[in-house]
Each structure stands twice: as C-alpha cells, then as structure tokens.
C-alpha cells in the first residue's frame, strides 16, 4: 500500500502558490500558455465563500445586475469556484477570432466573459425577478435555497453530467455490478478479522504456531 500511496502523491497536481485561475482548467495547453512555470503574477483577492454558503449552480436561471448585459436573464453553464466566477450562456460576450493561421484571419466567435457572484442574482421562479437567496432547512431536513422575498424554494437545477452519462438511460456493461447486487447487504458483524473469516470460508486450517518475536 505504501508504494501506491507514494505514486498517488506523485501524480497529485500541485499548483504554484498564488496561481491565477483563468477560464481554462489548470493542466490544459491554454492554461499552461497563460501561466507558464515560473510566472509570478500579483495574486487576485478572492472573497472566501465556504461550500455551504455558495448558492449558484450550473443550470440556474440568473439575472445580471451590472455590466454590458445588465438586466438580462441567462442560464449558468460554468462555475469557477477558485475565482467565484459564473459563466452565463451567450451573455456578457466579447468577440474573438479562433483558428487563426498565417494567411487566414480566423473565424469570429462570441465568447462569454465570467461574472462575479455578486454581479448576478438568482431569479425567483414565481415572479421571474432577481431575488436574494438563503439556505434553509425543510420539514424533511433537506437543505434548500429559499428566496427571501417570496419564500419559495428554488430547486437545484438539472444539468447534463460532464461525462455525458444520463442516469435514466444507463444500461450496465458486462463488468458493472447491477444496482440490487451493489446495494445488497451481506455483512454480518462478527468478532472476527477478515483473514479469519476468509480462512473459515475457504476451509484453511492454520496449524503453524507463530514463533516468539520481539518488538522494539
């Protein structure tokens, strides 16, 4: 186990201190281009928001409060927690060229700029107006976002998974365990170690006596 733990530590990604997170994920070519090793930029101050207090998720309907597209409503497509950023679909865009070569100017595409969490507000589904949101507990004990103005619960939105799997249309492969088999409880707590239980099950009898060893 120690060798695998060592390899795991080696493969774990370590970013330099004050790494400036951009729109690209660290590790991609674009991010490496923007933050080459040895680059030390002044650090950006990011308001520390705990995971419990964060209220914006992918797929939410939000309204922009300030900026070029102030007043417009859009869907959140990406959340970058390291910078408290939210990227809306098709809003707050600037234009840039993509696929540029030596002789071709490239195709112009609108690319969305990120917005900070306080520049957008969640939209209340009742009256479709921006509203402040609080985290509260339901009768069942579930933690949900509640709009402070109307008191309506804003449910967590559906958003397609990054790996493209749709849980409703999933068919198990030959190496997958079925849901019933995975959730089946076969554990009976007994005062025996795993080794003893497995030896019992396989009918192995250990007749050798352990020689006396000294521990120091």
């Amino acid at each position, binding site marked *: *186990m120690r060798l*695998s733990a060592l390899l*795991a530590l080696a493969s774990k990604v370590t970013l330099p201190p004050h790494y400036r997170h951009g729109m690209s994920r660290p590790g991609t070519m674009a991010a490496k281009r923007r933050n080459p090793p040895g680059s030390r930029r002044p650090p950006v*101050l990011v*308001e*520390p928001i705990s995971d419990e207090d964060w209220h914006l998720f992918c797929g939410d309907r939000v309204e922009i409060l300030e900026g070029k597209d102030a007043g417009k409503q859009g869907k959140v497509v990406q959340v970058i927690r390291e910078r408290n950023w939210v990227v809306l679909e098709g809003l707050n865009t600037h234009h840039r060229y993509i696929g540029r070569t030596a002789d071709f100017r490239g195709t112009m595409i609108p690319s969305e700029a990120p917005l900070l969490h306080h520049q957008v507000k969640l939209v209340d589904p009742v009256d479709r107006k921006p509203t402040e949101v609080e985290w509260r507990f339901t009768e069942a004990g579930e933690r949900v976002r509640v709009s402070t103005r109307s008191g309506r619960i804003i449910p967590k939105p559906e958003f397609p998974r990054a*790996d493209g799997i749709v849980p409703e249309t*999933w068919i*198990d*492969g*030959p*190496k*997958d*365990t079925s849901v019933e088999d*995975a*959730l*089946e*409880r*076969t*554990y*009976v707590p007994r*005062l*025996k*170690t*795993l080794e003893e*239980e*497995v030896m019992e*099950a396989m009918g192995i009898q250990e007749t050798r006596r352990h*020689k006396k*060893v*000294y*521990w*120091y």
Partner: protein
Amino acid sequence: MAAARFGVLCRRVSAAVKTAGSFLSPQGSAGTGFSLILLPKNIPSVTSLPQCRIIHTTLSRKGLEEFFDDPKNWGEEKVKSGAAWTCQQLRNKSNEDLHKLWYVLLKERNMLLTLEQEAKRQILPMPSPERLEKVIESMDALDKVVQEREDALRLLQTGQEKPRPGAWRKDIFGRIIWHKFKQWAIPWHLNKRYNRKRFFAMPYVDQFDRLRLEKHARIQIRKRNLEKKKAKLLQEKFPHLSEAQKSSLA
C-alpha cells in the same frame, strides 16, 4: 511443456540430493550411523521424490488473457464503465465478498495499467482513462473499510489505537520522534545493530535543539503574521465579510 520443465527441475533436485549424500561421512569404527558434517545451503526444498506433482493454484485456466480487455473492446476509442464503489456500499458487504472484490479489482487494475503502458509505448491516447481512476478509488475505499473493521475489532479486544506498536523517543538529533517498532528474532540487549542506534542526545546537541526550536517559532510567527495581513487585506476589499462572520457566529 510445463511437465518437461518440472521434469528438468526434478532431475536437478535429485542430482543435488545425490551430491549432498556425498557430504555424509562415516563416523569411524565406533560409530554406527552417519553424521552430517556440512549441508550445502543451495539445495532446493522438495516435497516428494522421485515424483513431482504439478500444482495449479488458480481456479480459472485463462492465464495471461486476464491482462487484456475483452477482445470486442480492442481498438475502441471509448469504453463505457459504471461508477466506482463508494465506502458506504462496501460497508454493507461481508468480508468474503470484499476479499473476492479486491482480487477482481486488482486484475482489472492490472489490465488497465497494461493498457496504459501499451498506449504510451504506441504514443496513442488511452481509451477511457477514467476507468483506472475509478478502480483505484474503489480499491482505496475497500482498504479504508477493511481498516475501519480491523480498527474497531482491535479497539474492542485490546484497546490499542494503533495496529503497529511504537513509542515516543528522543533520537540522536534531539528530536522527539514516533519510533515504530520492528519485529526481531532476538531481544534488544543482544541485538548489535539495534544497540548501535542511539535514542539519546549528547549535551552538544542542545544548542542545535534551541536553534531548531527558534526556527519553528519564527515559521509559526511568520505564518500568523501573514494570516493577519491577509485578513486585513480581505477586510479592506470586502467590508461586509466581518459582519457576515459575526452574524454566522452569533
């Protein structure tokens, strides 16, 4: 072919035993039996002579095929795979099931590592590398669950928190370290190698101990000052932070 190899081994073993017989020397006129003067250490142990049995230890006879994926998946760009086993799902399984699952996961991991290495060799992308991450995660979760069960049993039966015995001792550099005990065949007062290890520090080490303490203190103070500075910067930039903290504490 395996039989022929075993036959060769058996022939070598029997030859070695015959040469060992030559080391047996007759006692003399008074002695009735033989006494063994020297036994060469390179004789392999043998279960039975002259027959040698071929023993299979695995139940399946598939062999090296298990290092490779299902032939249908060869050459595919993507291979579908389900989610990893979670700790909670594994806690519901019996020890025999966990034992079997460990080896299934191990074989899958070996297959995926072989695939990864072969993809690196051929300078091609590995199809669906997330499978390997899921298998590693499942195996780590399984190990964690087994460790939890062992810890619980040990705490109930002996009250010992750690599986491996140890002690806090001062090493030769004056540092207090957790010395993990090793298993030895002889007691400590007869062990030459162990007695060469010194679990005490001479007086000339005190100065360096003081310097180490000072260094540690300086690092702690620097960390505390940095946190204070950062908190001040954040307070300037986000004035509402302190009110939010006060309201959350109240």
